Structure formats: structure tokens, C-alpha cells
């Protein structure tokens, strides 16, 4: 960048030029380089905290500026060749009193009522009740009374949880099909939805504001070079969620907004504060890939989530004491985590991500059911970047989850009759199918190039490399060569207590260099390229080029 000189008048300008010419004959600044007003580079805050923040922001900026979805998702994995050491959250494992942590981890505030958008379709829903009730009656009798449910496969353990899940997995697609066919005349868009049965749902994000563990605290205390870093300074923890919804409905147009992103609950909702490591809740950490999969691959036309069904058999596997006191909370936790994960992975396919904040909200609907009990929830994702300070009060947005308590559809089925039918539950169920996806009013993909996906990129080398890397990484297959490990005896006799000082230093921790966990994705020996195809082609000893291919590539 050329720094322009400011000069008082023409006379000083001429003397300066002549002086410069005397000093160095090569330097000949032209008159057009001088401007009346000086232009300085931006003044950077050189305090320790600001420098650290800028480091994180360069990473975030780098990912935001990448052009295609696959490259952004790959770049998330770039710093870790062997995977991120992330807190694994699973849909089926909800620990005791998990609601405060879940709300903090997903920055969600929870309300017990459904949003006002469902009141608009109330009339149509009431009119459709008789038609749906008749068919639902038949379906319930069929599944609960008459049909003998498919038994477990050979060798599978049979528990109350798996039995209930199996039943639900048979029932839910039939229920969905019935509702879609009956309600299509009232909602044309239902016929244009895509259905996924047992899709793969994974989401990855960074959570800031977690206190450091004992080992990190000790490292910081012993770190004499960097005294400015406080021992208790909170850190980011990566979180990887693995879900398994029963059925997903997707549409090519997004659901309408449930509430305004910049006011009301989205900016003022209460979220419990949390700073402890998730391991106190019983969740485990594991080396895993940062995968964001909403149940379909990039490039799918119907890429906006419409509705999702989840099963709740896992509740039967929890300890007795948990089922009595923690039952309803567990359902809320399941709904919040699933909705956040689904909307986040959809957002990643639209160019946003754990480092790229949303510019508009994304909504989704969820039903948790086992045939008899139903819990409805609607979720709006307002913020997805929760790294560093963004998981705390500095982030103006909150995600909102409208989740009802569980309700019974019917009391009991006896002697070929459904008894105690609850019309309210049926009405809510119908309302969920009557919401129409709308044409988006905003730019859906502000951070993506017009090509969107790597399959549209014309540069062959880049396209092929990114495609193979992405597919390999997202298969979650372990590497063939495992990470180098320190054997237990080496830890005791070579590292902790130096009892073998004269031995040859051959092992990776004795040679020095980077720790294996710090290896980046691009640190590997590249595949061998034959001499003829190298660029420029490698000449032989006698200076002759290799034989040129007959077809010009």
C-alpha cells in the first residue's frame, strides 16, 4: 500500500523530491502520489485480548469468504488431522437435569406454548378434524390391536425401549402418509415435500464460555512466557451432536418466520448461565470429525426442513427416579437439541456455520411421539455462531423453542375401540401440516458464490480434490494409520521418570516437533505424480523432456 505524503506547499514538495533524487537515483515519486489528506492504515488495538480475538476472527473470516458449501465444511476440519476432541451429544442419552446445560449450549429460551402462526390455521384445522379422526381411528386400531408388530431381528436385545421404538418406526410413516394425503387439498405444498426415513443427522458447533479443565489450568500456571493469560479464562469446547429422527419432511421453500429476530423473545428471552465442563453431566468427549449433515447431501433441491418426527423409547431405559421427576424435561431437551442441530446443519448448507452468523432466521417443526403420547415443538434459529464471547450476553440474539408438554391422543384401546380420544392433540397435529412454506424475501445465501456447490465449479483439480476430501471426511471412517500413541511403560520410565537416559531417541515424543494431535489436515505426504505429468515436466539427465502425450490435455 502506498503511503501518501502530506506536504505544506509546492515549495516543500519540490525540495523533498529533489532531496529524494539526491539520495537514491532510482526513487522517482510521481506528483500524482501526493494527496492533500493523509491516509493511514487502521489503528489496531495491541492489547493481549484484542490480538487473541483478531486471531479467532481471521479463522472465522477465512471460512466465511470461502465460496462453496463443501469447502466451508472442510475448512472446519482443517486444523485437526485426527479429528476434534469434541463433547458427543446423542439424542438417546439425556442425563439428569440436562435442560439448563442444553439451553446454554444451544442458546435457546424455552416457552410452553406454540407460536401465534398456528392460530391462523385454527379454523381450517377444526374443519378437517372429522375426516382425519375417522382415518386416524382406523390406523390406531390397525397398528395397536390387529397388526402383529415386526419382531426384533435375530440377535438384537429386546427391551421396552427398543420395542416402543420399533412400534413407533412402523406407525409414524403411516401416520404421516395419511395426514399428507388427507390434508393436501388444504395445503398444496404438502405434495411437494420430500420424505427421509431414519436420516443421518449430525451437527457440529463451538461453545464458548466453558471453564478450563485441571490440565489446562496447570499448563497456564506453569507458562512463564505468557503471564497475561489468566488461569481461569474460559475456552471454547467443540460439540458434536448425533441424532436419529424417525422421519423428516423437507421442502424447496423455507418455513415462514415464527417471530421477529430482533425483538421480543429473540433478544430478551432468559437463558440459564453455565460455565462447567459438560463432562459433569455425564457426556463423553471423543475424537470425531466436525460433520454437519441435515439428512441429505449438498445440492438437494428440497433443502429446507419442514417437519420432523422423533421417537421416545429411550425414556423407558432411564433409571426409575429419572422417569418420575425428569421426564418432561428430557422431552424438552430432546426437542431443543434436535431442532437446533437440524436448523444448524441446514444453515451450513446455505453458507452459514459455527463461525458464520445468520442473517435471517430459520424455523422448523418437531413432533415427539410413540403413537399414544405426543409433544409438539416449533423452533426458530436466530443465531448459530456461539464461539468465544458469542455464547454469552454479547450475543444479542437467542434461539427460541416453543415446546408443549406431552399429551395423550387417546386413553386406551379396548375391544376394537379407541377410548378417550383427545381432539386438541389431533388439532395440533393437523395444524403442523397446514403451515405453508413461503418464498424467501431475503438473499438466502449471502456468503456463497453463484456456483453454490463444488460440483458446479469448473476448475477440475479443485473440484476433484474437494469432492474426494469431503466425501472421505464425512464418511466418518477412521484413518488406516492410527494416531501415534505413547505406551504406558514409556510414559512411566521415559517421560515421568527419566530412568533410561542413554537410549537412542527414536520415538516421536523424543525427537521433538509437533504433538500428533496438532497435525493439520494438509500436513501429509502428497501422492506421487509421474514425471511426465509433473508441471513443469521433469527432464531426464540428458536434458530431454519426457514423451509428450499425443492428445493435448
Amino acid at each position: 500500500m502506498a503511503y501518501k505524503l502530506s506536504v505544506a506547499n509546492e515549495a516543500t514538495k519540490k525540495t523533498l523530491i529533489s532531496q529524494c533524487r539526491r539520495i537514491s537515483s532510482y526513487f522517482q515519486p510521481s506528483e500524482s502520489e501526493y494527496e492533500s489528506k493523509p491516509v493511514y492504515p487502521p489503528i489496531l488495538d495491541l492489547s493481549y485480548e484484542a490480538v487473541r480475538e483478531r486471531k479467532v476472527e481471521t479463522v472465522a473470516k477465512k471460512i466465511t469468504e470461502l465460496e462453496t458449501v463443501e469447502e466451508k465444511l472442510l475448512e472446519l476440519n482443517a486444523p485437526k488431522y485426527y479429528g476434534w476432541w469434541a463433547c458427543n451429544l446423542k439424542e438417546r442419552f439425556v442425563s439428569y437435569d440436562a435442560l439448563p446445560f442444553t439451553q446454554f449450549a444451544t442458546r435457546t429460551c424455552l416457552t410452553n406454548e406454540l407460536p401465534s402462526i398456528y392460530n391462523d390455521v385454527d379454523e381450517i384445522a377444526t374443519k378437517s378434524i372429522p375426516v382425519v379422526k375417522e382415518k386416524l381411528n382406523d390406523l390406531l386400531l390397525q397398528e395397536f390391536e390387529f397388526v402383529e408388530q415386526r419382531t426384533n431381528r435375530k440377535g438384537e436385545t429386546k427391551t421396552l425401549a427398543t420395542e416402543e421404538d420399533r412400534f413407533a418406526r412402523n406407525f409414524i410413516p403411516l401416520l404421516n402418509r395419511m395426514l399428507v394425503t388427507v390434508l393436501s387439498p388444504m395445503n398444496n405444498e404438502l405434495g411437494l415435500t420430500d420424505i427421509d426415513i431414519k436420516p443421518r443427522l449430525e451437527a457440529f458447533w463451538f461453545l464458548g464460555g466453558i471453564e478450563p479443565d485441571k490440565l489446562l489450568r496447570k499448563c497456564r500456571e506453569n507458562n512463564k512466557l505468557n503471564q497475561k493469560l489468566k488461569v481461569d479464562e474460559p475456552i471454547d469446547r467443540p460439540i458434536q451432536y448425533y441424532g436419529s429422527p424417525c422421519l423428516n419432511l423437507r421442502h424447496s421453500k423455507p418455513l415462514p418466520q415464527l417471530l421477529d429476530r430482533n425483538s421480543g423473545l429473540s433478544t430478551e428471552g432468559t437463558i440459564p448461565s453455565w460455565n462447567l465442563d459438560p463432562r459433569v453431566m455425564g457426556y463423553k468427549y471423543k475424537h470425531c470429525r466436525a460433520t454437519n449433515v441435515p439428512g441429505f447431501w449438498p445440492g438437494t433441491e428440497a433443502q429446507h426442513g419442514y417437519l420432523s418426527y422423533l421417537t421416545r423409547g429411550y425414556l423407558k431405559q432411564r433409571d426409575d427416579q429419572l422417569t418420575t421427576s425428569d421426564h418432561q424435561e428430557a422431552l424438552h431437551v430432546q426437542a431443543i437439541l434436535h431442532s437446533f442441530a437440524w436448523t444448524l446443519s441446514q444453515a451450513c448448507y446455505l453458507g452459514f456455520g459455527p463461525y458464520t452468523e445468520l442473517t435471517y432466521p430459520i424455523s422448523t417443526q418437531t413432533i415427539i411421539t410413540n403413537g399414544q403420547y405426543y409433544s409438539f415443538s416449533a423452533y426458530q434459529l436466530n443465531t448459530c455462531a456461539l464461539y468465544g464471547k458469542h455464547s454469552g450476553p454479547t450475543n444479542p440474539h437467542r434461539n427460541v423453542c416453543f415446546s408443549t408438554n406431552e399429551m395423550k391422543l387417546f386413553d386406551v384401546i379396548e375391544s376394537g375401540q379407541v377410548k378417550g380420544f383427545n381432539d386438541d392433540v389431533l388439532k395440533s397435529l393437523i395444524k403442523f401440516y397446514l403451515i405453508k412454506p413461503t418464498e424467501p424475501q431475503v438473499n438466502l445465501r449471502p456468503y456463497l458464490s453463484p456456483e453454490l456447490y463444488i460440483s458446479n465449479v469448473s476448475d477440475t483439480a479443485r473440484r476433484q480434490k474437494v469432492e474426494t476430501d469431503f466425501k472421505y471426511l464425512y464418511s466418518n471412517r477412521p484413518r488406516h494409520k492410527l494416531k501415534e500413541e505413547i505406551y504406558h511403560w514409556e510414559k512411566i520410565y521415559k517421560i515421568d521418570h527419566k530412568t533410561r537416559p542413554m537410549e537412542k531417541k527414536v520415538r516421536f515424543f523424543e525427537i521433538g516437533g509437533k504433538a500428533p494431535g496438532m497435525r493439520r489436515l494438509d500436513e501429509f505426504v502428497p501422492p506421487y505424480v509421474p514425471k511426465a505429468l509433473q508441471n513443469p515436466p521433469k527432464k531426464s539427465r540428458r536434458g530431454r523432456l519426457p514423451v509428450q502425450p499425443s492428445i493435448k490435455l
Partner: protein
Amino acid sequence: MSTRLYPAFKNGDSKLRVFLPDFWMKLVKPSHNLLPNQVQFVVSPQMTKLDVKQYLEKIYNVPVIHVNTFNKMGKTKTVPNHYVTKEPDEKIAFVTLHKDHKFVFPDLFAKADDELTEQSKSMKASKEQYALKTKLNISKQGVPTWFSH
């Protein structure tokens, strides 16, 4: 129930009652920040999660929601020019109580330094000096310092 061998339970058998179990549990200061309703114990390595739960519920009437256990290896120690030794292993149990049931490990030595008298302060200082001297000659631990070493 206890470290004694007892017959395996079969469906229909009567309950085996153990009156003086030789299991033990030791409440310790938490090694890291826990939830307010969590307590950390060091327990007998033969105890299972269910044993820990029943111990608290039946003997102390403390309702327990969940127990997590893990075996912690004892630290290895060495004296210079001597062989490596290991402290005994421990089993740590994290007990989760009901969320309204809070427990804070008491600060047992809060007013220690303030209440020391002049004499006890000088005693403490001389103890520390002795420890320093013996640390320097750790291979000759236990030998009185008036031996010239």
C-alpha cells in the same frame, strides 16, 4: 454389598441381607468444579455403581439419582537413583443427588493461619525448615539432621 463372596442371585431367591458390610466410602473435596448437587467419594474398588447407591440410600437415607465411577491409577513416584514406586489405585465415585439437594464440601482449615499464636507460628516455621533440609537429602529420609550429610 461386601467384599466377601456371596451366592449369585437367581430369580425367586430371597434377598440376602448383609448387616455389617465391609465396604467403605470416603467423602472428599471435589477434584474439579462439580454441579451443586454432586458429591465426590473415594470408594472401595470392589464396589459397583449400584453398591454405592444402595450404601447411601440404605445406611444414610440419602436418595441418589445417579452414580458415575472410574478407577484412578495411583501416582508413580521415584527417589533419585532408586526404583519407581506406585501409590495404591483408587476408585472415585461421583454421586448425583436430586437437583434441589445442594452440597458444598466444607472448608475445614478456614481460620488456620489467623488463630495461630506466636509459639505455634515459630513451630510451623521450624517444621518447614526441617522439611526443606530433609528434602535436600531425600535418599536418607528418616535419618536425623545432626548427622553430617
